[in-house]
């Protein structure tokens, strides 16, 4: 990754000159890999089959210890608290639909797997928040913004590096990174979606700029997502192959992550939701996802809802006997009956053929130092020392070599090219868990 000298200069001057500067910088991500996967989605939004169930899944939230506020069979309203974070009770996870709690699935050691809600199609769209006039958005106090985000549950759209958990409202962010590009295989083009909701997107950015004076909208070059400048909001353009669109790449290009989780990030569709929440007073539960992959009958963008049941959504969309993945083929997750729902932060669904016998392709015990790693690695520090530290559980080295700014998705390409067949994402997750809670 090369931040051209003049761009670095711009960044430095932007931070030194203070918040009123709106700059645009271009970062050329030189190393990466765009994998061609069959079933590229058509970049036009189509309506989808209505879903009868939606769910919140525990696995979407890193480091979650929930305190449940509902029980099975109970009727819930859109935006009603389903559970809170046990250690930070002001962080609320709210219902993405009005209806009835159909089931609360628990896993090993009573870990929360999913809360499934039967959607009541007749429920009137609740409008429980005050609509702010557009001019007032830029004058909101940070406390008011935080309060309403926590109240509505939209706070959980934010995540913070390191650890990628929902941020603590008590820790001020150093910067907020808005991911408005997607370079993963078979992804939706964010410019298409933002084009449909441009005013909400701008309003959402305005609201976020009340939380931090350093908002980076990370986008493709010349995507022109902003139609006016907003104080404190800069556009960072990232050119090049995947992982140019991953937030880990964005953060590493513009900052350095330390032990405190204060590098926040948020997806572009959640920025739209925040804009709608403040400007219209409504909780926006739509989600536009890209359906793709070799098993998709008509790969295209679908408008569905947060946490949609994939069974309902994909009934007539995929061939029989496919593996359904929420997220991309590089960093998504396969689903099981209790987790057959759209992931909280996912904007794509893949239908993949079932895997053949891969027992012969398991990892070997050591590492192989081939140039393929450097060819897909966008960061300045070399990949292999970090990957070796992660595999061997050497936490000090892993931290020194830059694991704090990363999440499993950032290492997906390394696992893809690795001839020794290691799973570096899982190793990173283990290391981050151990770093967060020293034994």
């Amino acid at each position: 990754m090369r931040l051209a000298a003049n761009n670095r200069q711009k960044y430095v001057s932007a931070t030194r000159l203070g918040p009123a500067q709106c700059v645009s910088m271009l970062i050329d991500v030189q190393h990466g890999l765009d994998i061609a996967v069959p079933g590229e989605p058509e970049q036009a939004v189509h309506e989808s089959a209505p879903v009868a169930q939606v769910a919140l899944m525990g696995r979407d939230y890193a480091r979650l210890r929930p305190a449940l506020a509902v029980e099975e069979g109970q009727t819930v309203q859109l935006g009603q608290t389903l559970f809170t974070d046990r250690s930070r009770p002001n962080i609320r996870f709210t219902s993405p639909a009005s209806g009835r709690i159909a089931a609360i699935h628990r896993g090993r050691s009573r870990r929360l797997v999913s809360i499934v809600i039967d959607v009541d199609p007749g429920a009137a769209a609740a409008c429980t928040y005050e609509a702010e006039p557009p001019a007032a958005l830029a004058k909101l106090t940070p406390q008011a913004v935080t309060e309403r985000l926590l109240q509505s549950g939209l706070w959980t759209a934010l995540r913070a590096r390191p650890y990628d958990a929902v941020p603590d409202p008590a820790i001020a962010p150093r910067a907020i990174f808005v991911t408005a590009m997607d370079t993963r295989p078979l992804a939706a083009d964010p410019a298409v979606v933002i084009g449909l909701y441009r005013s909400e997107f701008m309003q959402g950015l305005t609201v976020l700029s009340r939380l931090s004076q350093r908002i980076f909208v990370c986008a493709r070059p010349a995507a022109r997502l902003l139609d006016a400048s907003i104080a404190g909001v800069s556009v960072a353009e990232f050119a090049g192959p995947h992982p140019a669109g991953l937030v880990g790449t964005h953060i590493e290009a513009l900052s350095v992550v330390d032990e405190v989780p204060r590098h926040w990030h948020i997806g572009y569709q959640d920025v739209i939701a925040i804009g709608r929440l403040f400007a219209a007073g409504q909780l926006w539960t739509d989600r536009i996802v890209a359906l793709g992959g070799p098993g998709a009958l008509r790969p295209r963008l679908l408008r569905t809802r947060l946490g949609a049941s994939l069974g309902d959504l994909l009934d007539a969309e995929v061939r029989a006997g496919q593996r359904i993945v929420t997220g991309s083929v590089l960093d998504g997750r396969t689903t099981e009956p209790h987790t057959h729902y759209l992931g909280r932060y996912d904007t794509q669904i893949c239908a993949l053929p079932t895997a053949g016998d891969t027992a012969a392709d398991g990892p070997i015990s050591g590492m192989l130092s081939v140039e393929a790693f450097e060819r897909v690695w966008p960061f300045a520090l070399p990949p292999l020392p970090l990957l070796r530290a992660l595999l061997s559980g050497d936490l000090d080295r892993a931290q020194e070599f830059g694991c704090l700014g990363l999440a499993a998705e950032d290492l997906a390409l390394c696992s893809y090219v690795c001839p020794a067949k290691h799973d570096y994402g899982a190793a990173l997750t283990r290391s981050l868990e151990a770093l967060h809670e020293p034994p």
Partner: protein
Amino acid sequence: MNRLEEAPGSWRHALAQLAARNLRPAKYVAGTAPLLRGATNADTVQNLFLAASLPAFAIGAWASGARVATAAAASEGARGHWQWGLAAALDLTGADVHWLGQLALGLACIAPALLVAAAVTAFWELAFAVSRQRRVDAGWPMLTWLFVLLLPVTTPLYMVALGATFAVVIGKHIFGGTGRYIVSPALLGVVFLSYAYSSEVVMPASAGMPSWSLVAAGAIEISSATGTWLAALLGRESGTIGTPSALACLLGAAYLAQRGAISARTVGGAVLGLIATAALFAWLGDTAVAQLGWHWHLSLGSFGFAVAFVATDPTTMPLTRTGRWVYGALIGILTVTIRVANPAHPEGSLTAVLLAGLCVPLIDAAVMRVKLRARRARAAEIARG
């Protein structure tokens, strides 16, 4: 419109596609992400080494056959190499045998060594797999192949078996197998033999073909021998089986680098280190070997083979790109230094790879130290705002 917007069709885009094509077709896998994995695995990477060294092997087999045919005609048979007898039996003796005959003779002399080495390594691999209840470790064909190619064609078969055993057991499995050993096991097996049986594991020199020992001893006039030098570069050289053609070895290295299996940095660093050191000695030294031009150092002995296929073993390579440059340069520097310091030593480059391999962790640590300093400076700059 931004220049980078035009990515498809640009050089960079095309290069990225080329790099992508270097990966074999991907496979969908079960379990955790990524659910798509490149099909390149430890076996395919190591088998690439076999493919890349085939031209070097073919030229080496031909050169070995030519050497055996000449030796058999010069009534060296009394020294008792069975290969001399084979040449006589096949009626392929003398310096004027057709090149196809020389190639066939070379292959016939090499085949038993390959079979013995393959049987021995396969036995040990199976023994370790069974006793440790694991899959058979990757890469034994590569080990066998490189080991045999680093031996002279006259090596007795029991020594081949002994060396292969040393390579697999001590060089590889003591450390935990592919991905864990610290120097190339094939190299270790050859070095073991060359120290334990230093008189047998040397190709007897002959005035008919140039070799490192003849040049080092001043037996070949090098100042006017551009033709000889070119012939040695192409492969008309008497040495170990795989090493006569430095050109074929370096072309094999280029292929491996293009496929992403090895680092061109190591090969480039080694060649640059060799040139620089040879020039330095030519300037400072006054012995015949010190005065030898870098082009002779490049084309003679095992340098090309060792740099292309042995030093670049993916298990033993440095973990950083800068480290790969340094490691390669160290090999080039040590090769010339050892050759100049001890011309009687049959091959400096293998010892150089061995020594440089032991420095790899040190090189990586030093490189990371420098890179981390730059990162810390950047973190401090950003923290200041």
